[in-house]
């Protein structure tokens, strides 16, 4: 522990370094958030504020069936993408790290490329892959004999959600793989050796050593996946526009739609809902990270 006099002189020394960053953050993050919170309590006719609305924007939003649909879509989208991305990512981290295959780094980089591709390119390419006219996905499924007629992946409300979930999992699993690999590499190797001496098999080692020791990385990874899924906009917007029939309209899409038609009462109230949800997850995330950091 340093003594008190150093603490205060340190604050003075730190100020010139951190002040510009703080000012910019206030201007670009705090002020906009205050702005949109204030907006959600105002009556707005699209041309400007026309009075105080209290909680009316919110009550109106909650009674709007579109909002309920957006929430349930967001839950389905988030849970399925988080769970599947994690399972696939972790599976490949385990396979690559804990097997005797050669060129581990090479395999990892190849898989990781999917993460690096710009989001809009991912979405556009998959839109083309899922197309009913000349799309590769249908063609592959047909030649494998799994389906007879082309599935209208993005234009049928039965399939649209499945299609966008596939793309998000494809995009996020490589990141999970990377994170979990880092977690696996940080584990002390001698634990496995002593488990070997005690006669543990690979299933036992995975269940009773690997999993418990990876708790923190797992938690961080899953939280990040949650936040990304809740906040995702471009992938869904480009692939389906939230359609067909609102079947892929998540909260992000709903906010954008309301904003686009200048229904600012609804847009700002929906935005605050999304803000609350993602900040709740972000706070848990930060708590875990800070605990790790000590």
């Amino acid at each position, binding site marked *: 522990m340093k003594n008190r006099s150093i603490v205060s002189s340190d604050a003075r020394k730190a100020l010139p370094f951190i002040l510009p960053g703080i000012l910019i953050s206030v201007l670009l993050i705090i002020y906009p958030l205050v702005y949109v919170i204030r907006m959600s309590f105002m009556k707005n006719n699209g041309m400007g504020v026309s009075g105080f609305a209290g909680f009316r924007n919110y009550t109106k939003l909650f009674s709007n069936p579109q909002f309920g649909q957006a929430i349930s879509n967001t839950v389905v989208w988030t849970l399925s993408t988080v769970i599947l991305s994690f399972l696939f990512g972790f599976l490949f981290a385990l*396979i690559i790290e804990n*097997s005797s295959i050669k060129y581990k780094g090479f395999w990892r980089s190849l898989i990781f490329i999917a993460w690096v591709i710009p989001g809009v390119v991912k979405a556009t390419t998959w839109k083309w892959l899922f197309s009913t006219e000349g799309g590769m996905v249908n063609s592959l499924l047909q030649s494998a004999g799994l389906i007879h007629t082309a599935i209208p992946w993005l234009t049928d409300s039965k399939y649209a959600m499945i299609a966008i979930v596939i793309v998000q999992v494809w995009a996020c699993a490589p990141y999970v793989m990377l994170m979990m690999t880092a977690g696996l590499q940080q584990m002390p190797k001698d634990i496995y050796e002593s488990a070997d001496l005690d006669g543990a098999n*690979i299933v036992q080692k995975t269940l009773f050593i690997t999993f418990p020791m990876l708790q923190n990385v797992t938690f961080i990874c899953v939280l990040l996946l949650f936040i990304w899924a809740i906040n995702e906009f471009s992938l869904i*917007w480009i692939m389906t526009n939230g359609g067909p029939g609102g079947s892929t309209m998540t909260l*992000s899409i709903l906010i954008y739609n309301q904003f686009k038609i200048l229904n600012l009462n609804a847009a700002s109230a929906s935005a605050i809902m999304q803000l609350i949800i993602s900040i709740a997850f972000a706070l848990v*995330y930060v708590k875990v990270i800070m605990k790790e950091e000590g």
Partner: protein
Amino acid sequence: MNKRSNPVALVLIYALLLIAVLMTLLPLGWIFSTSFKPSTEIFQTPPRWIPQNPTMVNYQQVLFNSTIPRAFLNSLLVGLISALLALLIGGAAGYGFARFRFKGNRTLSMFMLISQMLPLTVLMIPMYYMESNVGLLDTPFGLAVAHLVITLPLVTWMAKGYFLGIPKEIEEAASIDGCSTLQAVTWVVLPLVRPALAATGIYAFISSWNEFTLANVLTQSDNSKTVPIALSQFSTFFKVDWGSTMAAAAIITIPVIVVFMCVQKYFVSGLVNGAVKG
């Protein structure tokens, strides 16, 4: 762990890996395959991977007859401004957080971390009005400033990690030799973290290059439209010209992949450090 797996398991593992790699690379391959196809081959069933009559016509279309080249320049400009500002401001802040103990240090670091996770669909609404009020709407500089929302917390957080890795004693030795704080930072600390900071700057650049949500709202004309927006507009027409859309996708993706390959070492460890070690 036991490194001598039996051969059957090993074959199975290679098979699984091959599937995973194919899953990752096939969409990428499909981009290039489509981009070299003449329009007569694009909707051919069953689709072929190798074009029968490969053509450059799609690339010509994109390079000489579309908004992509202009958008490419806009994206470069926006990304450079945003990354440089973030490096300058965020690098300094990261140093401040790493080196000095003061009240609020922890809270401020937490704030930086949380702000990386704010939904852009929330921020886009106030930002639209703010930028329109100060005349920054639909300008590359306006978008670059808006992208600081993403790049600044990112650079600050990563820089903090790098500076924490430099022992304080090095600076103390420099100040005994008569260096001021600023001199010690400039001549002793910065050279040590330069590669890592450069990688962070590249990461910030790529984040800006890829960003869609804010750009979609804050840019309207060709003067400020970035590549993600230009590309998305390719595929919104009723009858999509997939040949040139994929050529445009290739043109946008190649720089990112090349850059990623070059800085992979820092990129990957930075990503992991950002979350695993904090």
